[in-house]
């Protein structure tokens, strides 16, 4: 029984360590996952929210994308999926995924910080070209 006891202490230890890792991992890397509407409301309520890293899912506004001529710097506008009047400009300094474009309704998830000047400084841009994956009968006809 003594060995069994020792053994269960060991197992309990492992379980505790894993729990601890998950706990600290979450608290140190968590990001609010918001829609543009929610982001605006948050920032209005609490201006310190500008300092916090957030993840936002929205849609790329058609025709809003431009790239700096000789510098890897993209500008585009993200709009809310439900309320198109809610929008903000985005700056991104890395390579955009191929699925990103501003000619179709491309859904994006961006990660970064919503600066005080109203520009979202993105560090990650994931694009999902939702409308293009599967079409209804009407779309196929057109």
């Amino acid at each position, binding site marked *: 029984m003594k060995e069994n006891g020792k053994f269960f202490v060991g197992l309990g230890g492992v379980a505790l360590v894993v729990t601890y890792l998950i706990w600290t991992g979450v608290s*140190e890397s*968590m990001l*609010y996952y*918001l829609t543009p509407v929610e982001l605006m409301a948050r920032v209005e309520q609490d201006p310190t929210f500008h300092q916090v890293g957030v993840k936002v899912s929205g849609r790329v506004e058609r025709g809003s994308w431009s*790239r700096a001529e000789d510098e890897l710097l993209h500008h585009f506008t993200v709009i809310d999926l439900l309320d198109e009047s809610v929008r903000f400009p985005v700056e991104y300094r890395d390579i955009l995924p191929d699925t990103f474009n501003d000619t179709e309704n491309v859904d994006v998830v961006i990660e970064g910080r919503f600066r005080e000047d109203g520009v979202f400084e993105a560090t990650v841009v994931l694009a999902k070209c939702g409308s293009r994956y*599967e079409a209804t009968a009407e779309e196929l006809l057109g």
Partner: protein
Amino acid sequence: MILLGELALWIALPVGIWGAVAGFVGGRKERGDLVLSGEHCVYAVFFLLVLTSAGIITAFVTDNFEYWYVANYSNRELPLFYKVAGLWAGQRGSLVFWVLLLSFFSAAAVFTNRTKNREFMPYVVGVLLTISSFFLVVLLFADVNPFERLPFAPADGRGLNPQLQNYWMTIHPPTLYLGFTAFTIPFAFAMSALLSGKLDTRWILITRRWILLSWFFLANGIIFGMRWAYEMLGWGGFWFWDPVENASLLPWLAATAFLHSIQIQENRGMLKVWNMGLVTLTFLLTIFATFLTRSGLIESVHTFAENTKIAFIFLAFMGVMAGCSALLIAWRYPQLKSENQIQSFLSRESAFLFNNLILLGAAFSILWGTLFPLITEGLTGTAIAVGPPFFNRVNLPIGLALMALMGIGPVIAWRRASRRNLVKNFRMPVIVGSMVVAALFLRGVHHGMALLTFGLSAFVMTIIIVEFVKGTKARARIEGEGHLLAFYHLVSRNRRRWGGYIVHVGVVMIFTAFAGVAFNRELIQTVDPGDTITIGSPFGHEYTLTYQGLSSPRGKNMVRQAVALMTVERNGRPIESLTAEKVLYVKWESSPLTIVGINSYILEDLYLILENVNDLGGAFENEAGAQRATFKVQVNVLVGWIWYGGFVVTLGGIIAMWPSRGSTRTAPRTKTGGKRPALAARS
């Protein structure tokens, strides 16, 4: 052919249901004729699914765009092998593909057991056909019928997403699906053992090879997926902790745990309930993987379809399956008592148990992180996400602990290990590991976690090599064989053990490769033809890339292609040049696909991305003035070791699975753990 396929799909469902009922009733009432009828249904369902799949592929190959599924995933100019791969390009086809593979494995399991293990077969047939029938019901009644017709036939289809027009498309999904579906067989045998009350280790011995087979395909499927993601821009490199990637890793982690814990049951008659739980968990995770990939419930870069109706059906199915097996385990609980107890903290069973707990801890943390946005949104109304930093942070220590166990496991004895023996076995590996760390540190490697990883991998490698050497020597001495022959016999007489060690070598290589990421370098530069980009390697040498300009050939199913050529020199000496491309595919003219260029060397990859062409339209027209472009150049350290490690894992897996002559391996072990004299001599 297409109509025949559709008809076959409809016939398969009643056949499957009848077979399931016949299996269960035949088992309960001990009616041999019913059981036989059920087994025939297993073959019939497989045959019908072959017809169904052939029907779908025919529709693709003959450009029959009247079918919604074909119109959505193909176009006339699409190369033939992507048309065939259309079977698993979208949700509808991949569900058919799933049942096809499941029914194939079911038929194989019934066929190989047609004369033996008969007492398990009734319920095995019942369980397998129940699962197949579930998928068939989904296919026919959940708005995902692949044979759904449009009211008209479009002139051309919408084409396959360019990101999927990659040769890995024909390899990666089938491999992963083979792994997912193969695990249904051990699950069915486990359930049959519970239902029939044959609760000894027989079900494990029968399905051991199936478990390995499933594990093997899962491992390869994951590695192939990593390679594909590595070659694709926008998928975040070889591993991004994306929900869909995580979904494929979860059953692999659980299956790995299971592979180890069944050995405790085989050797020591312990952990019977645990193994029943683990086989159920692994099976559920394979279903969960399809569910997550195909439901679109969680945002992923790999989600190619959304259907929330399917999501709920799958959830319900997983719930029912979990409930049934929990009830069965509870019912048989008294008969699942352990025959032995842990005798010592320092024993192999204890090491295996820690391995189980750590693997499941990793699986739990990954599941938790993946579902975190859903959980937090449900509880607080605001979704909170965790990204790669979370997964890396949690799984790095877990990975290191697993590596340490891979070293400890092989040299620690069953039941009770003596401290003196441990010290003797660990002295040299610890010294080698420490020397590797010291040498790397002196050479300028100061990244703590990477050093720890390299040190541990040297430790494990040494232990495994020493094991091989000791085993070979002992055998050579006792049997009087030459060393080469002794080595061959050593491995071939206990394939699972030595194959397993080889798999460990591969896994350690892959873990080592992950640590290489800490030393990667990258550079972004805009250049005109004739300009050079220079990037240093952490190994001290320097690459100079000279931009030679763009050309515009045209490949099959492509509208336009811009290929940038870079000649490369290493320390001034010319080496293999690199190309990187932007391609416009037919039907996908608004978003060019970026094709990266990779030069692989033993210790690093030179990786080139054509980020932007200032005047892409001009470049497509071969205009001389439209050549200015921006490149990202990366030196990816040790990344090749993932693929080398993958080969080693494959090799070890094949050795472990290879059918053995005679049945010595399935004989029950004796008190000494059934060790052959040659092996017993070493401990």
